[in-house]
């Protein structure tokens, strides 16, 4: 393309807009459903229940170690659909872009989205582009919606966590949140941090097919592992007990968090899941998870218990490293570094 920067006319719906879609987006998203270029996507539905999820992506910076807002808009929505035990099939994407955005950046983001979608095996079937005046949006916001087919009934859900279940996590936590925070705030000296963003649908499908009877799947994004576990305890009216020493955290993450006054259990993840299932199936589920690169560090971190012994339903109790017990509350506000 000859233009270097996104102009307001790219959002006009006229020729410039068509050119942008045809030349910049379509080559990366190519699939027969999208290429019909009608007002809506024609989808084959087939029998059975569907899962649908939508999410807005506003991450700053838009490119960060390990990923960018483009692949994040695919991974995040694919994962949300997957957490219902569904196979994600189709995505829609709406782009709200700031005038002046370098087209080279937009091209990189589109390529990254296309690559992520192919890896996850989903089709981007419809979309929209808007260009807003400088300052009306911060570079680029993406809203993506995903539809998938439920693979097993009853579908996993937070309310299904049952007393005696094992709590698994698919890998080391805290990396995405820490990467974004340090990149955004320009905190230097933590080279080597990378976002964990990845689609987990293949891993979920293997769990559903090979293990079955998965009670809960949840991706611990904003608010981190602690908040996701707290939400599950509330939904199911149980107490979640977690062993601090068993929660996988990379040593670099733990060290950076310690310096900055952050807690990895509250930092966002974009390529991890919590899996809660009957304890008897925990070992087999771990074996399945560890077969995938994104599940290599999977671990059993706790159990679901009935309220009692000083705990109320909806609480998460942490067994601390020195052997004590305390509550692991859900996140309040933003995770901010302390001052002393």
């Amino acid at each position, binding site marked *: 393309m000859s233009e270097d920067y996104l102009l307001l006319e790219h959002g006009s719906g006229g020729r410039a807009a068509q050119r942008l879609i045809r030349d910049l987006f379509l080559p990366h998203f190519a699939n027969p459903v999208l290429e019909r270029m009608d007002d809506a996507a024609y989808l084959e539905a087939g029998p059975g229940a569907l899962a649908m999820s939508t999410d807005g992506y506003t991450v700053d910076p838009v490119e960060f170690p390990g990923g960018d807002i483009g692949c994040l808009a695919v991974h995040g929505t694919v994962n949300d659909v997957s957490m219902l035990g569904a196979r994600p099939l189709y995505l829609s994407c709406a782009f709200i872009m700031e005038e002046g955005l370098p087209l080279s950046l937009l091209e990189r983001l589109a390529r990254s989205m296309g690559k992520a979608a192919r890896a996850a095996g989903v089709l981007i079937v419809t979309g929209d582009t808007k260009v807003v005046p400088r300052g009306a949006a911060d570079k680029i916001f993406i809203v993506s919606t995903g539809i998938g087919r439920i693979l097993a009934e009853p579908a996993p859900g937070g309310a299904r966590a049952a007393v005696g279940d094992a709590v698994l996590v698919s890998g080391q936590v805290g990396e995405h949140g820490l990467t974004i925070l340090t990149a955004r*705030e320009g*905190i230097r000296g933590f080279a080597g941090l990378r976002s964990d963003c990845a689609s987990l649908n293949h891993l979920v499908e293997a769990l559903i097919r090979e293990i079955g009877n998965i009670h809960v799947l949840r991706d611990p994004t904003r608010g981190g592992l602690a908040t996701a576990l707290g939400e599950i305890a509330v939904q199911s009216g149980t107490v979640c007990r977690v062993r*601090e*020493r068993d*929660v*996988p*955290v990379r*040593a670099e993450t*733990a*060290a950076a968090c*310690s310096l*900055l006054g952050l807690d*990895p*259990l509250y930092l966002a993840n974009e390529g991890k899941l919590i899996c809660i299932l009957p304890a008897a199936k925990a070992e087999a589920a771990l074996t399945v998870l560890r077969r995938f690169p994104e599940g290599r560090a999977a671990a059993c971190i706790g159990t679901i218990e009935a309220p009692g012994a*000083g*705990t109320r339903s909806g609480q998460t*109790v*942490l*067994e*601390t*490293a*020195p*052997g*004590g*017990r*305390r*509550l692991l*509350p859900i996140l*309040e*506000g*933003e995770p*901010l*570094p*302390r*001052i*002393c």
Partner: protein
Amino acid sequence: MQPIDPTFSDPELCRGLLDRIEDELDSPLRFMEVCGTHTTAIFRAGLPSLWSSRITHISGPGCPVCVTHSREIASCLELAGKDEVILASFGDLMRIPGPKGMSLGRARAKGADLRIIYSPLEALELAVQNPKRAVVFLGVGFETTAPATAVAICAARQAKLENFSVLCMHKLTPPALRALLREAEQEPVKEEDAPSNPVAPILDAFLLPGHVSTILGPEPFRFIADEYGKPGVIGGFEPTDILQSLLLMIRMRKKGRAKIVNQYSRAVDAKGNAKARALMDEVFTAADSLWRGLGLIPQSGLEIRAAYVDFDARERFSLDCSDPASALENPACKCGEVLRGRISPRECPLFAKVCVPERPAGPCMVSSEGSCAAFFRYQIDF
């Protein structure tokens, strides 16, 4: 999650220390941990679930965010309202309520230019990058953060930066402890004031702040032992540090020999950090200061010396920080008594009902290092 150095939270080692504490504890121990980082460390490690029920820890006034007075927040907000000003602040100041429930976080949402920074030197960079704006660094914290503010002011003078100033709200630890001890001595605790433990004294011993002591050394805390007869231990922040500090307190009390002992010798030098103190002394002088929950404490704050008045935001923007009446706090809030060790957070009528971390009524609920917030978050079965 493995601790960074697992030895310091080794369950066996902790068990051994806990057993000795249990053996040697001759009567109930009420100790005050002065520093908010100790408060958090105690709760996060779940230590109250491990140690004897005869041990009570009282969280002192050592969370700098919590004790920042709403009058001071009012000054920050006044600055935030000025178009030419960029405020540079540490993150946890954002949520502290000022007058009429306004906070810096809300001011930012309404358009104030507020940047979260990690070091005062970043505020200097902001001033260089924005020559047409006035950058004001919000200087909060105790002796730990004050030297870095002093460095920034010296560097600003050297670089002849005219658009940089500091709103100095730094506070000093020893005068606050002296005020607490003096008050405790003057009014021995009455039964109705401390239903959780009707036996005086309010305080048996002090866990002294490890970070502050890296700057001050043990000397400024000696009066606690010499004048008030209370043992004090400068302690580290790992579970084994805290447990060993407790054991040292218990032994001193048993022998009737109150001293100030340095358990955190791997970080705290016997002389402290003379260079940092000299820098503080170059730029600041002690002044009376308002503490949220405690009120006015003589000579407990730092103000910028006349020689550096060009960098004093109070002077530059003619801020009036002297009128405490303009800052109303919830009259039912018992934070003052929590900070003085007279009651436990759960004994405050507002705790967990009106006063919760997302809507704090008082200072102790404000920061994650405040005693009420830590109690609310971490304590099982409150």
